[in-house]
């Protein structure tokens, strides 16, 4: 192989992925480990990488304890009902009690936060969301990470974690390749914080052709947060909890700010309110505990986002689509009109492009909404990710093994999408989780837990061979074809991705089957997944860029496999509107008020599934107040 091997040794904290989680980790690591070597390995350029690349118009997780607005326990209550009970409340509580300090830092660094002229408090768009001019959110937090890290490696696609050979189940670093030079990079590190992205594009997107990349979550979020961890043998949780979002059709513009701040509403093709008519039927499926519109009016308890999706889907299936967002009223106010447009220019420019292209001015026309394909992620409104330890002062024994945000692999920590059971962290919560993980990683090293790590050259060489195999495979077989992409001996990454998306869609509850699946379908899908994985061994990459896509695909496939196993294990429809198990249509608290936990044996590829107890922290309802809708 012509590519150079570049070894970075004696790293204390390696941060894989520098989105909001990774930048938070690198920033905080310097404070607690002033003598430690902190290195970042990022697939793109940390100035514009991760889900916040184009910016954000709101910070969706801010308590406002400073202004007497909310306490951390309020946020736990909110996230819990939105996820129908299934969250890690210790991790949520911990994130929520620190998140305000993160946001206050952001303001000090120069992030423009809007303020309420009357109260002086941050301008709210919802109970948990504050409004920002966040186009440069990512460059600002990247500056903080750059000031803290010893070295930043941009354009490194991390493919595998290195494992310690002197002690089983302990991490020893990571390997990957530079997507521009092709060089092989070896990072030998005492701890690793995985802050890579969740998974977009594992389900077939609604668009075809060019638009197949116009997904809601960034197309470069390739499930590496899960691919890296699962392959290292880390336990995962809540991987069945994929998210489906109601968005502006084709533009994927978020609807939260429109509902919450602009006070818009949705209606069916006849201009009617439709949600409430589905509640009685849905209440039979999920029980009054989870859907009590009356209680929602009386208290802060929102109707779970997935249930509102359910009403949307059923209304469309009943032939009363499209669902429209009523913007024409709010947009008559010039200030609100500006907020509506800037909301997208600051974070989803494609929505503004679409409106310009189709001559839709929301002031004169109510735009269409639709539901997206599913995504697998742990930082937005769902909680897929690794089974991590909680903080020592909060967590019960089942949730605690010494170091905050450490996975079930020693020395391996998570942040953002990588941590399971902490939905509604969003950007500020992900940054906060990075900070928490960094402090714990420093403690882990100071306690001597990382002593005596050994990585053999044979492990390093074996990974190198594995990483570049798609390039070799291409070289050997390309002469089977003169031109084009049809070859009997290999598939390319795009073909592999198309196959993955098709089978996830049809067997695991994607868009074209109205998010419906059952045991039979899941088993057929899993069988096809295994055959796809056999073919991935024959994946061919024409150049280094395609090699990047090849490894993104491999991480996506591993993520998808885990979603299959979890969905098969949870024999109930816990989240109607996100997906349905046709063979177990009802929510079943008696048997399934538990968190699901899986582990893939790295040697055999076998999955072990278990149920873990779901502990609760706070009581059901709080004092009556104004009703609030859930943010999607």
């Amino acid at each position, binding site marked *: 192989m012509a590519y150079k091997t570049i070894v970075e040794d004696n790293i204390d904290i390696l941060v894989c992925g520098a989105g909001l989680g990774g930048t938070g980790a690198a*920033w905080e690591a*310097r404070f607690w480990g002033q003598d430690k070597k902190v290195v970042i390995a990022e697939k793109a350029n940390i100035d514009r990488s991760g889900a916040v690349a184009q910016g954000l118009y709101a910070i969706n997780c801010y308590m406002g304890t400073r202004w007497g607005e909310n306490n951390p326990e309020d946020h736990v209550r909110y996230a819990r009902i939105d996820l129908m009970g299934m969250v890690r409340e210790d991790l949520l509580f911990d994130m929520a009690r620190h998140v305000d300090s993160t946001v206050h830092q952001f303001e000090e660094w120069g992030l*423009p936060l809007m303020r309420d002229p009357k109260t002086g408090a941050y301008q709210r768009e919802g109970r948990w969301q504050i409004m920002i*001019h966040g186009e440069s959110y990512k460059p600002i937090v990247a500056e903080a990470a750059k000031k803290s890290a010893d070295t930043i490696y941009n354009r490194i696609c991390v493919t595998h974690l290195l494992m310690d050979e002197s002690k089983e189940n302990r991490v020893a670093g990571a390997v990957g390749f530079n997507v521009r030079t092709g060089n092989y990079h070896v990072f030998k590190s005492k701890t690793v914080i995985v802050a890579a992205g969740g998974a977009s594009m594992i389900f077939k997107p609604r668009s075809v052709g060019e638009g197949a*990349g116009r997904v809601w979550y960034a197309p470069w979020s390739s499930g590496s947060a899960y691919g890296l961890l699962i392959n290292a043998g880390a336990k995962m949780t809540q991987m069945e909890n994929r998210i489906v979002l109601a968005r502006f059709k084709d533009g994927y513009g978020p609807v939260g700010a429109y509902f919450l701040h602009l006070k818009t509403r949705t209606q069916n093709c006849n201009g009617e309110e439709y949600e409430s008519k589905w509640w009685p039927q849905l209440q039979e499926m999920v029980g009054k*505990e989870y859907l009590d519109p009356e209680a929602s009016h009386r208290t802060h308890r929102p109707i779970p986002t997935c249930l509102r999706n359910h009403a949307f889907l059923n209304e469309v299936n009943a032939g009363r689509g499209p669902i429209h967002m009523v913007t024409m009223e709010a947009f008559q106010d010039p200030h609100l009109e500006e907020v509506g447009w800037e909301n997208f*220019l600051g974070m989803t420019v494609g929505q503004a492009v679409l409106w310009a292209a189709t*001559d839709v001015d929301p002031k004169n026309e109510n735009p269409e909404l639709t539901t997206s394909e599913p995504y697998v992620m742990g930082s937005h409104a769902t909680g897929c990710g690794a089974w991590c330890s909680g903080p020592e002062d909060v967590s019960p024994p089942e949730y605690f093994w010494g170091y905050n945000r450490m996975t079930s692999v020693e020395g391996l920590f998570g942040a953002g999408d990588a941590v399971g059971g902490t939905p509604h962290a969003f950007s500020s919560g992900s940054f906060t989780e990075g900070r928490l993980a960094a402090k714990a990683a420093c403690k882990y090293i100071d306690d001597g837990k990382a002593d005596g790590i050994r990585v053999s050259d044979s492990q390093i060489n074996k990974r190198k061979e594995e990483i570049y195999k798609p390039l070799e495979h291409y070289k050997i077989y390309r002469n089977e074809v003169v031109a084009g992409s049809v070859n009997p001996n290999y598939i390319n990454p795009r073909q592999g991705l198309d196959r993955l998306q098709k089978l996830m869609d049809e067997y695991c509850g994607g868009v074209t089957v109205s998010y419906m699946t059952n045991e039979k379908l899941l088993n057929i899908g899993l069988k096809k997944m295994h055959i796809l994985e056999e073919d991935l061994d024959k994946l061919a990459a024409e150049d280094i860029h395609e090699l990047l896509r090849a490894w993104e695909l491999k991480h996506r496939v591993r993520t998808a496999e885990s979603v299959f196993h979890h969905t098969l294990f949870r024999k109930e429809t816990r989240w109607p509107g996100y997906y349905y198990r046709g063979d177990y249509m009802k929510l079943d608290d008696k048997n399934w008020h538990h968190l699901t936990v899986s582990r893939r044996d790295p040697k055999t590829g076998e999955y072990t599934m278990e149920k873990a107890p779901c502990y609760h922290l706070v009581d059901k309802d709080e004092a009556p107040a104004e009703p609030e809708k859930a943010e999607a």
Partner: protein
Amino acid sequence: MPTFVYMTRCDGCGYCVDICPSDIMHIDETTRRAYNIEPNMCWECYSCVKACPHHAIDVRGYADFAPLGHSVRVDRDEERGTIAWKIKFRDGREKNFLSPITTKPWGKHIPQLADVPAPDQSMRDSQLLFNEPKYIRMDEGDLHTLEAAGLKLKEGVYY
């Protein structure tokens, strides 16, 4: 396509190649101009558009649902700390927006944590992060604990 490059304006500087989060802006080896090598992995995130010093990169909506004839142009000015947008509809209408990107000059207001006093053992043993508890409430209010909030983790169905 979705991003595309005006060949006469591009000088092949590579700023777009440097910044693209999806690794799809590349320099054509023959023409020495930038181009999008993989349109269906583009997110229309505008990172390259904003980074281009010559305004040579533009975006058109995806061909499978967006008609031709529109544009959304941007000018991000780090020195003034603003971003300006010009939206042109197919039918010729225009909308213009301007918003701030930062409240402080770049590069000066984020501290070097290597230079701040190192945390002592009691801080390391606590649950606090850098600059906490002060930064949580911007006063002397302390961190939330289960005891302080009168809470206890319990097993069982809550709803």
